[in-house]
């Protein structure tokens, strides 16, 4: 293509983008003008405050107007749907990684691209999907579950949301290949063969994500502790509200070390004084990272425990087996999980005492997890009748996957196993059991439950939803089991190629991964199909509202 043609093409694309941006800008501005005019006529100077009061307590369907309003439910919808968007982006990256491992040598995707996909998959899944969906469900469900007295932090929530989105977008643009551990000196190598040429942008993006998430966490905690209705004491809150409380306290008490560490890392780009000099060691950064890096994996789990409790009680028509022990073990999980982060560095040469302390502490953290599981099983046991709707199937599968993944985790806490399995696919299998089975599964369960509200009274196809469930559950099981077995035999993770002897485990994991991907396409098709149909039910979901009509449906038909 000649220079002239290139210029013409660039100007055409540039004009189209400019027209699109202007159209969005025009629509947003005219909408906000008309909104503030209406508010002025009603005697309000703050248009957003007026609309927050107008929307208060009503079921909130999805529409583009969530970007104009900033009441808690609109913010919640923004978080939920943005995190699902990032789930699909990161999931597509994950399937691409799987497919490229078809052959022991990288022939489909080159190692540089593979490493970028790996970094993006992990970071987006954790920071943009798991945390985002947890915050979203918090913002969306708590105002009705706790019948808020006031909803006055909309501006701040909106800023927090946009910072988080900006961070996630910049992270994708940075094409970083440093892996989500961000260990220096690798993350300081601004080369395509190291951490990626634009890795400095990834560090800024991470910092933006952290600022956004921290702001949102403070706001949600304020909503729970200060704004909830006077007749709902702490001891009567839904387990989900408690789960969000513990998650966010954990988030706020452990993300500062990494925020500081990222700042120091950024300084090291210009003047390496912190982690790579003769008097320091990169392990200092690893310690700062894992002080946050371990709690983060519980942040991706605890809110979903809360949702599981709530969903189980809705479909088994029985109260939680033991409310006290449920809340107590989630709280214990929060405290203990901040004491076990060192088990990610057992073989780093930090000393025998380090190994002794952190392996033993890792066994203790299993106690609250086991109590949670037993409590859920107890609730199901007590129920006279369990309705196996799609959300309930997802939740039961989540319990099963959490047990399997948890047992693999206990195995890893043994130093003798850790020496063999650390850094292998065994670990990947361990946490994908929990992340796919529990985090993804419960997100989908909650999404299905809330779907009539999201879509203003439409119902999804129950048969397709069940297919979605069975395909996802089977794919996840196949993928994670293959990884766990292969990993125990020494199959290293985070590699673009591998020893030919591991091909059978990789190939079966590829089949599993592709099956999970197909399952999510069924989900998309189901949602798209039902969205085009006419509303046939009322928009009151059973997670937030108790009405006469919604008790028998599970959001589907």
């Amino acid at each position, binding site marked *: 293509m000649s220079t002239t043609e290139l210029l013409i093409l660039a100007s055409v694309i540039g004009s189209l983008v400019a027209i699109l941006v202007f159209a969005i800008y025009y629509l947003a501005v005219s909408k906000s003008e008309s909104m503030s005019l209406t508010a002025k006529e009603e005697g309000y100077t703050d248009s957003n405050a007026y609309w927050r009061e107008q929307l208060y307590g009503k079921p909130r369907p999805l529409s583009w107007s969530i970007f104009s309003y900033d009441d808690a439910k609109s913010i919640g919808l923004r978080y939920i749907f943005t995190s699902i968007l990032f789930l699909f982006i990161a999931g597509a990256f994950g399937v691409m990684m799987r497919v490229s491992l078809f052959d022991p040598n*990288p022939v489909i995707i080159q*190692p*540089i691209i593979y*490493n970028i996909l790996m970094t993006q998959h992990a970071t987006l899944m954790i920071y943009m999907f798991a945390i985002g969906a947890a915050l979203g469900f918090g913002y969306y469900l708590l105002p009705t579950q706790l019948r808020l007295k006031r909803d006055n932090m909309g501006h701040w929530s909106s800023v927090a949301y946009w910072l988080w989105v900006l961070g996630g977008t910049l992270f994708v643009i940075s094409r970083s*290949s440093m892996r989500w*551990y961000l*260990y*220096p*000196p*690798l993350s300081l*190598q601004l080369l395509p*063969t*190291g951490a990626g040429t634009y890795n400095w942008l990834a560090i800024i993006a991470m910092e933006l994500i952290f600022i956004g998430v921290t702001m949102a966490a403070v706001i949600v905690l304020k909503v729970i502790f200060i704004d909830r209705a006077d007749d709902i004491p702490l001891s009567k809150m839904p387990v989900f509200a408690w789960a969000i409380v513990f998650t966010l306290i954990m988030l706020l008490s452990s993300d500062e070390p990494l925020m500081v560490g990222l700042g120091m890392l950024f300084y090291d780009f210009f003047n390496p004084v912190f982690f*790579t000099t*003769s008097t320091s*060691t*990169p*392990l200092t950064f*690893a310690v700062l990272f894992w002080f946050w890096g371990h709690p983060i994996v519980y942040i991706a789990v605890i809110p979903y425990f809360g949702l599981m409790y709530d969903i189980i009680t809705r479909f088994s028509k029985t109260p939680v087996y*033991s409310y006290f*022990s449920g809340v107590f073990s989630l709280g214990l999980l929060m405290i203990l999980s901040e004491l076990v982060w060192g088990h990610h560095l057992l*073989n*780093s*040469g*930090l*000393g*025998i005492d380090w*190994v*002794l302390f952190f*392996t*033993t502490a890792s*066994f*203790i953290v*299993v*106690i609250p997890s*086991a*109590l949670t599981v*037993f409590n859920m099983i*107890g609730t199901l046991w007590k129920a006279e009748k369990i309705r196996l709707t799609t959300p309930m199937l997802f939740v039961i599968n989540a319990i099963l996957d959490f047990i399997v993944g948890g047992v693999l985790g*206990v195995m890893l*806490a*043994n*130093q*003798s196993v*850790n*020496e*063999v399995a*650390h*850094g*292998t696919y065994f670990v990947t299998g361990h946490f994908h059991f929990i992340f796919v089975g529990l985090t993804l599964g419960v997100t989908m369960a909650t999404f299905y439950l809330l779907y009539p509200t999201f879509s203003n009274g439409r119902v999804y196809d129950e048969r397709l939803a069940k297919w979605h469930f069975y395909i996802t559950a089977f794919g996840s099981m196949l993928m994670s089991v293959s990884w766990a077995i292969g990993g125990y*035999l*020494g199959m*290293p*993770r*985070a590699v*673009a*190629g*591998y*020893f030919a*002897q591991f091909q059978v485990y990789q190939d079966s994991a590829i089949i599993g991964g592709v099956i999970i991907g197909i399952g999510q396409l069924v989900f998309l098709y189901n949602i798209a199909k039902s969205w085009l149909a006419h509303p046939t039910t009322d928009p009151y979901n059973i997670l937030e509202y108790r009405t006469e009509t919604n008790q028998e449906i599970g959001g589907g038909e």
Partner: protein
Amino acid sequence: MNSKVKHELIYSLVVIAILLAVAVVNINYIDGHKANIAQPENNSTVPANSTIIHVTGYQWAWSFTYANGTTSTDKLYVQAGHNYTLQVQSKDVIHDLLIPSLGLQVYAVPGHPNQVSFEPMKKGSYIFECVEYCGQDHYLMRGYMEVSS
């Protein structure tokens, strides 16, 4: 005491008992295998009958320097029934040497040399690999340990 609290107590105690047993096994293992766990390099803690092999990890290969001064890359030559101590360092970024069949794992950290001891028992050829992501050709940072009798 109602039946609910009783059930809760029973399952809590069963979980705690199982974990306690596993924790004791684990502490026993650590106590009995101190030299086999990665630890900071220190010549005074090398077992008496052990031969030192110097290992250097760099992007993207492992090099092994033996007591007689010879060097091999991505190949580790050892003899069955002898005790060896690997003293591991890194030239550039963090690496992690794993020999799965021996259950031996040690990080190679720049500025923080580590050591770990092992004793191969059976003749044969075994894989080893880098399991800490270290850049483009991380997956090629692997090789074979040849155990002769």
